[in-house]
């Protein structure tokens, strides 16, 4: 979600903060993921609105500190505001971010299957390496809170799937 910057200062603050990589998925930036919500600049103070991906995401603090550091390096006095509402959704990952995830070997989130009735109802996840749809879920939870583990039946490679929430 890109909020149009309204002044030169906000543009430069946005440029600095939006380049911060995600600490757990460093191929994408906080702007690619859509967790950097907005920047407001008041004199020398730059306030960044940042949303957590998951309630218990251990990277939240690291991300907030990194955004602060980036703003400080750009000459601002940084503040970070944690934005809980509306909650972050994988729909906010930009198309550029999705492409970066795929290139990195992580299948980007597909259509929502939020229905709790959909027991055993898996989405057809596309293998990020060979493009096959013949994949199977290994584990609902993966190396980080935002990912599940899949395996491609065509090329036999295991891969991470960025879960759709």
């Amino acid at each position, binding site marked *: 979600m890109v909020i149009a910057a309204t002044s030169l200062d906000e543009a430069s603050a946005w440029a600095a903060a939006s380049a911060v990589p995600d600490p757990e998925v460093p191929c994408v930036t906080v702007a690619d993921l859509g967790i950097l919500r907005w920047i407001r600049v008041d004199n020398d103070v730059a306030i960044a609105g940042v949303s957590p991906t998951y*309630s*218990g995401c251990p990277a939240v603090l690291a991300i907030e500190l990194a955004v602060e550091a980036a703003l400080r390096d750009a000459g601002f006095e940084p503040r970070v505001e944690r*934005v*809980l509402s509306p*909650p972050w959704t994988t729909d906010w990952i930009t198309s550029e971010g999705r492409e970066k995830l795929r290139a990195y070997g992580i299948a980007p989130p597909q259509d929502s299957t939020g229905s709790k009735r959909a*027991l055993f109802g898996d989405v057809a996840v596309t293998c990020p390496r060979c493009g096959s749809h013949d994949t199977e879920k290994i584990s609902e*939870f*993966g190396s980080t809170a935002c990912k599940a*583990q899949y395996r491609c039946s065509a090329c036999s490679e295991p891969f991470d799937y960025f879960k759709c*929430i």
Partner: protein
Amino acid sequence: MGLFNAVIELADDHLVLGHRVSEWCGHAPMLEEDLALPNMALDLIGTAQTLYDHAGTLEGTGRDADALAYLRGEREYRNCLLVERPNRDFAHTMLRQLYFAAFMEPYWQRAIDHPDPVIRGVAGKASKEMAYHIRHTGEWVIRLGDGTDESAQRMQDAVDALHNYTDELFEEGSAQDGLPGRAQIRADWDDTIDHVFEEARLTRPATTFPQTGGRDGRHGEGLGHMLAVMQSVHRAHPGASW
């Protein structure tokens, strides 16, 4: 203080269950579940932390999230008894999680338009996480219930042991301040549980002796032991930082 009390009840439910689930870390029956269980625990503890922060603000006496989590004794905890039940075997743990998530998912759905922005934010996030927990644990309850003789027996044992603790989920607190009515969640909860039990070939017992009292601070023996472990470092090193 109405909203403070309601938020504390919710926070205590999430922290106590989150800590219980975290006790599985390194002990799960397979690697995938060793990832799944701490991830579910993180969801719960993360939600609890936001709720405790907010409760501290609502109370306005300077108690922060750490003080509320680590410096209250068991009689001051307001969690329902279901969440403090010991892990026992994997079947018990999966069923306890399903019972809780099947309640919280519709509860948070109904809280999404609450006037308090923190409640709104937690509700939007946690309702999705709870839907995920329902799916994950529901699938396990079905696999085990409709599995081997041994797994089916253990799953049914878990149902028989835990079902008497489910009525307390629907008890209304004294003042809910615009939070969803707990009794109104019953139909949604029944729907989820009946659906899973039917596929799992499990028998849903009648609730013969509903176990309650957690909202008044009357807990089982297990909670005190759990808090002793959970709070020991904070109490031994007050104010420590690293």
